[in-house]
């Protein structure tokens, strides 16, 4: 990396917040996905919005590509930067700028950790709903970039359903204010377009989120099944009965055994083929009546036992196993390829059998822990990446799993994003014209293609669209 760029960045943020020595860069060579590794040229950590703007302007002037990074918990290799790139790390921009309990809004900087926001709004009886498993570490900015989900997104929606306004720094360093904190969009839905753009449209420096009331009553049910098929069928029965649980999660035997033999043991029955966690929330009477209905449906589908917990401590224990399942898998092998795909809920029984067949074919250790209610699978492959043959089989099995999910009408990612990991799968679900449209929209925000280059879109598979030259902002535009 050009020394002039480093000096320019040091002038903006101070030398302490520019990292360039190899030992310093090592931290930033991976995100949460162990299958990709890249060394960034420089890492810069701006501490204020103004510094961030100045950094992007300097990089634009020097024509240097950049990658935005939050806490590095992403699971698609989306925040990796190569040697010719600058990694803009946003963890110092971690201020909650405003909490407005009357309007149920909060404004945060991108580096605010997800769980910290709900902690801050708890005194008002409000919460920020999207709760990725990494919520104690991941940042709201990263959640916006990936359109992150989480167990509690079944009823209340994913990140995009909770963001109303974004102040965005475009890759050329100019500002745009998208959406409105009020009750309606302002112009076309550019907030919806920006959320999930995986750092390729710019960097959100102020994020206005919706807050929701903490539910008056919550019940968590645990049901265990002797077959995965029966558990999957119970999922469809619950949804078809008109109940929308706050969360509806499944863990298979491999996952349960990993959890139960770890420090996160939650008391799940280790001999069951699958367990379901169902969380109901809302007003007490509605929750109580849904509890009766759901228990009946679970037992009718073949559940061996159903436990219903209302007390917060007991509920937290039931959830602990689920939320820490990925951590528990660390005991099985040094590396974990967390996969992410979506299928129509009705195909869950078949697709889980198909995944099991793929596991046997490649002789792998796969555990499933996932958001069954919305058909969002996470087949997790435990492996050791130092074993080249094993790593190859992991890659091939992942591709087969994706193809199987797409074949039943699914998607290649429900919440982790495409990043670097899934670019090659994009043509499985989008034709060349649609990929071309995505590429063209990316150029609207970033004509020079310097924000997170080489991610999401397999360029060779995109049909060519013409580019619209950038024009100056008309003077008449209002704030």
């Amino acid at each position: 990396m050009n020394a002039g760029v480093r000096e320019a960045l040091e002038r903006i943020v101070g030398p302490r917040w520019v990292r360039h020595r190899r030992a310093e860069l090592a931290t930033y060579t991976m995100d949460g996905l162990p299958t990709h590794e890249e060394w960034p040229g420089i890492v810069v950590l701006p501490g204020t919005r103004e510094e961030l703007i100045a950094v992007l302007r300097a990089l634009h002037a020097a024509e240097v590509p950049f990658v935005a990074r939050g806490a590095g918990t992403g699971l698609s290799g989306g925040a990796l930067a190569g040697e010719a790139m600058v990694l803009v790390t946003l963890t110092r921009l971690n201020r909650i700028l405003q909490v407005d309990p009357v309007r149920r809004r909060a404004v945060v900087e991108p580096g605010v950790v997800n769980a910290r926001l709900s902690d801050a709004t708890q005194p008002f009886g409000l919460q920020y709903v999207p709760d990725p498993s990494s919520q104690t570490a991941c940042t709201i900015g990263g959640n916006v970039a990936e359109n992150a989900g989480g167990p509690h997104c079944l009823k209340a929606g994913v990140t995009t359903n909770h963001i109303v306004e974004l102040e965005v720094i475009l890759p050329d360093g100019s500002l745009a204010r998208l959406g409105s904190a009020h009750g309606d969009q302002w112009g076309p839905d550019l907030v919806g377009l920006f959320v999930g753009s995986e750092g390729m449209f710019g960097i959100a420096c102020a994020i206005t989120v919706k807050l929701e009331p903490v539910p008056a009553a919550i019940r968590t049910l645990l049901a265990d099944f002797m077959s995965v098929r029966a558990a999957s069928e119970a999922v469809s029965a619950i949804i078809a009965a008109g109940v929308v649980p706050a969360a509806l999660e499944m863990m298979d035997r491999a996952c349960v055994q990993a959890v139960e033999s770890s420090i996160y043991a939650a008391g799940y029955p280790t001999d069951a083929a699958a367990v379901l966690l169902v969380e109901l929330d809302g007003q007490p009477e509605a929750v109580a009546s849904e509890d009766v209905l759901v228990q009946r449906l679970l037992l009718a589908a073949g559940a061996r036992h159903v436990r219903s917990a209302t007390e917060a401590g007991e509920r937290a224990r039931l959830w602990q196993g689920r939320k820490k399942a990925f951590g528990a898998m660390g005991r099985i092998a040094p590396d974990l390829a967390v996969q992410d795909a979506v299928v129509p809920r009705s195909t869950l029984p078949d697709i889980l059998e198909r995944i099991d067949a793929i596991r046997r074919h490649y002789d792998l250790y796969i555990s499933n822990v996932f958001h069954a209610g919305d058909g969002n699978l996470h087949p997790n492959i435990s492996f050791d990446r130092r074993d080249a043959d094993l790593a190859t089989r992991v890659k091939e099995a992942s591709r087969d799993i994706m193809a199987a999910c797409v074949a039943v009408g699914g998607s290649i990612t429900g919440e982790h994003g495409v990043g670097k990991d899934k670019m090659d799968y994009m043509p499985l679900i989008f034709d060349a014209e649609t990929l071309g449209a995505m590429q063209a929209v990316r150029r609207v925000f970033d004509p020079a293609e310097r924000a997170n280059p080489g991610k999401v879109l397999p360029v060779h598979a995109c049909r060519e669209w013409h580019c619209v030259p950038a024009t100056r902002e008309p003077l008449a535009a209002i704030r």
Partner: protein
Amino acid sequence: MSDSLLAQVRDALGADAIERDPQGLPRAVPDSTDAVAQVVGLAHEHGWKLRVEGRGTWFPADAPADLALSTRALDAVEFVSPADLVAGMKAGMPLELLRRRLGDDGMWLALDPPGRPERSIGSVLATATAGPLRQGFGPVRDHVLGLTVVTGEGRVVRPGGRVVKNVAGFDLTKLQVGGFGAFGIITECTLRLRAVPRADRTLIARGPRDHLTSLARALTAARLSLSTLELFSPAIAAESDWVLAVRLLGTDEGVLAETGRLEAASDLPWSPLSHERAASFWHLAARAVLGGLVTLRLGALQDGLDDTLDLVAGVLDEGLVTAGAGSTGGIRWSGEANVAALRSLRRSAAAREIPVTLERAPWDLRHALGHFGAYREGVSQLVGRLRGTFDPSGVLSVALEAEPDGR
């Protein structure tokens, strides 16, 4: 348009798919996405202006054009999956027919947009006109899983998918929903559905506006689970006073308990409506929005509702008003208004950071004011470039922004 060019459209679609509108303008009525793409492709090639019409129940069909294109023959439901609560359909599908079709399978689309029952789903999506149910089920965009869109060049783009959770690629569906057709023509959609709730109860309270908005704030503070909490002006409710209407959906026990909680938290009596009266109440309220030539929507949250309603009444008139009195907010106003008054309202609203979207109006007003008027910082250039990307030769006759001298 010359006869030879019209002949090209006829050749592409067949003679049955061409007609004349009441003003004599040729109108293409394609019945597939490919046929729409062919027509738009010809328009792009020859530099025609195209006016897109749904079933003709929302906008007047008056945008200047060389050719009209109606989506009304795109009226098929393509698949319904009760187990997945998902359905795919073509964009000209009338809402009422769709409602019946889904009801046969115990499902419903939790959208109650303003307008007539035969309004097309494509029109609702393109204008993002949600109704009172947005309180419980979110804005229009939250119901859309995937789209098929024909761009102004005649390219066919298929963003999104058929599953309820999906973050693959950039979410181009969001650009199209509420884009007023400026970024392409929605020809097909896949929507997220719900199972028909076991209990569905509507209650209304009558009183002075200030009293009802204050009651609505109290209900929100009491954290009731309301699927709608909508305020109606006397003119739109056909009552002598303002009306606050609540809809409770869920299990029998849940709805019963919530009714008790509603009554306990209120200082006004609530009148429950029978199933038939409730259906007719919501139907008439949706339709009454068409009582004025102009319909606006303003982004105002609950704490700014009174102030914004006063502003609208002062600059325009009380009009036909419905307002989200709960946490989602939003005001819809219908009535008669001229360009100067609407400009003045937009200016005053912008000073309060409130967006005013022109949802429905004759072309002269749409053209002068634009659906959105002006944008916030940095957005104008992005929207301009998005339009240039999706409609490079300006085929689609849509006015998003105000005329330059009118801001």
